[in-house]
């Protein structure tokens, strides 16, 4: 075998054992029958997929997509200016980057709980506002869609900032001077030159935020308080409390297929517009 093949072998083994095999198992489970105490049994069936057509589950898919799309849009609106600022900062670039990465120093779970302490009725924000006499009743900031959206944006914002920063960082700045020189005002330069050039980073950032948002279960669980069921929660429930593994597997498979189709069309359009 060539050296090249040897070098790739560990990665191939890893992918086969920990990615391809579990996916094959999930796919197989989705076509089996639910066991009495969890697990799976014969015979093979497509019943789980039929159940997914129930309007209740279709609504969960739609709500999850809407939530993920909203989180992605907000991350883009917040993340692009931040990335631009860091890329153009003449000093302390690394410091600002560290600030973006700071949340990763602690566990995601701990950070989500921190939001709980901030947002709940007896939390920091409500207590402060009550003490200052600005409000008389605690604001309902927790256990609703807004809180879930906040959690998603908070959790995935760095994944938007970093790829956009990477593109803007190596962008040739004389191109912006050229635009000004040709009569474009700063805002016009931003929309006609900077953003189009940053598009690969924007696309990467959107994919990196959208996909995990779609499958998120911890954030909706903790900050949504079970009021907002997203696909991630549905899958989790089927494997734990509901003990319906085939149905949970079917939900996952459909989610994977939808995401794959979406990303594939997106990237294909992207490469077409470049070619």
């Amino acid at each position, binding site marked *: 075998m060539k050296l090249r093949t040897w070098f790739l072998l560990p990665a191939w083994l890893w992918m086969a054992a920990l990615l391809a095999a579990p996916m094959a198992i999930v796919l197989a489970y989705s076509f089996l029958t639910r066991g009495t105490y969890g697990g799976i049994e014969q015979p093979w069936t497509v019943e789980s997929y039929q159940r997914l057509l129930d309007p209740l589950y279709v609504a969960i898919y739609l709500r999850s997509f809407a939530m993920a799309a909203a989180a992605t849009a907000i991350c883009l609106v917040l993340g692009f200016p931040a990335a631009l600022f860091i890329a153009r900062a003449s000093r302390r670039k690394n410091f600002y980057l560290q600030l973006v990465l700071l949340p990763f120093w602690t566990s995601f779970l701990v950070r989500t709980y921190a939001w709980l302490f901030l947002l709940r009725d007896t939390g920091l924000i409500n207590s402060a506002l009550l003490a200052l006499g600005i409000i008389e009743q605690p604001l309902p900031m927790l256990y609703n869609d807004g809180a879930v959206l906040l959690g998603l944006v908070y959790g995935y914002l760095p994944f938007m900032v970093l790829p956009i920063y990477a593109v803007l960082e190596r962008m*040739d700045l*004389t*191109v912006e*001077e*050229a*635009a*000004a*020189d*040709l*009569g*474009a*005002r700063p805002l*016009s330069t931003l929309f*006609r*030159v900077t953003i*189009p*050039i940053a*598009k690969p980073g924007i696309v990467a950032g959107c994919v990196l935020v959208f996909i995990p948002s779609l499958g998120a279960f911890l954030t909706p669980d903790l900050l949504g308080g079970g009021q907002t069921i997203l696909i991630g929660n549905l899958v989790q429930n089927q494997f734990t409390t509901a003990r319906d593994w085939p149905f949970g597997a079917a939900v996952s498979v459909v989610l994977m297929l939808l995401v794959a189709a979406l990303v594939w069309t997106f990237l294909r359009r992207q490469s077409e517009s470049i070619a």
Partner: protein
Amino acid sequence: MNILEVRELVKQFPGHRAVDRVSLSIPRGAFFSLLGPSGCGKTTMLRLIAGFEEPDSGEVLLGGENVNSRKPYERNVSTVFQNYALFPHLTVRGNVEFGLRRSRSTDITRRVSEVLELVRLTGKENRRPAELSGGERQRVALARSLVLRPDVLLLDEPMAALDPKLRNQMRLELKAMQRQVGITFLLVTHDQEEALGLSDQLAVMNAGRIEQAGTPREVYLQPRTRFVADFLGAVNWIEGVGVRSEAMRIERTPQPDIRSARGVVEHSAFLGDRLQVLVRMTNGEQAVAHVPRTGPGFEPGEDVHLCWNAADEMRFA
């Protein structure tokens, strides 16, 4: 009338003064060059005129009007950048149209096709910069600026990124183009041959100041400072007097009625279009003479006489 005037312009950067009280006048329709070594402040001059830098003091006047406080997008000058700075995400057409946003669409189509014909890029409208050769990219940069009919076109070392053969060809084309469109060109270069060959007038810059301005002939033949003499071409210094290498003749016998110095040939190089002969003079200094290759050759060790006309001597205070 002067389309561009610069008065007592000063630009200070931390640690050095890039432009030090520079004044310039450029007549409408002229091809003017700023010539100087790297770091002499010529590019800063261009950036001050385009509006990318703000002067610490002094004035920039465009068509007689002070434009100091105007942003680059409010000045009717256009720049061809050294690296061209084409928009990578736009086609050739998109690049050329970029500055025409506010014009009528039928106008845009006509003007774009006219300018693309001028720079001989017809048929390449839908290519992207990455698919073009270096020479083509330069022509897109030119077209993108020329289509706006600027008062002054600023060119920052436009030939530097081209290979030498293409550079000569583009030089001729650039000059022809300037004549055809009648727009004032201000070229910044460190290449004296380029500046001499293209310009109606040129200014030689050194350490933030203009050493001398004038026609190529004046500046080359009557340099006011040693720096100018040296920068524009090879000079030999003989007893405080400068003589250009191509004004030197080499003779084997003493010549009457002519200035001369004795010496020994150290080295002779065949340069294709001429011979370069290095002579060690009796006073120990070296002189370089450029002599026709059609004449006799010279061997190292030969005793020779370096001869020149008194009219070719350059004297400095």
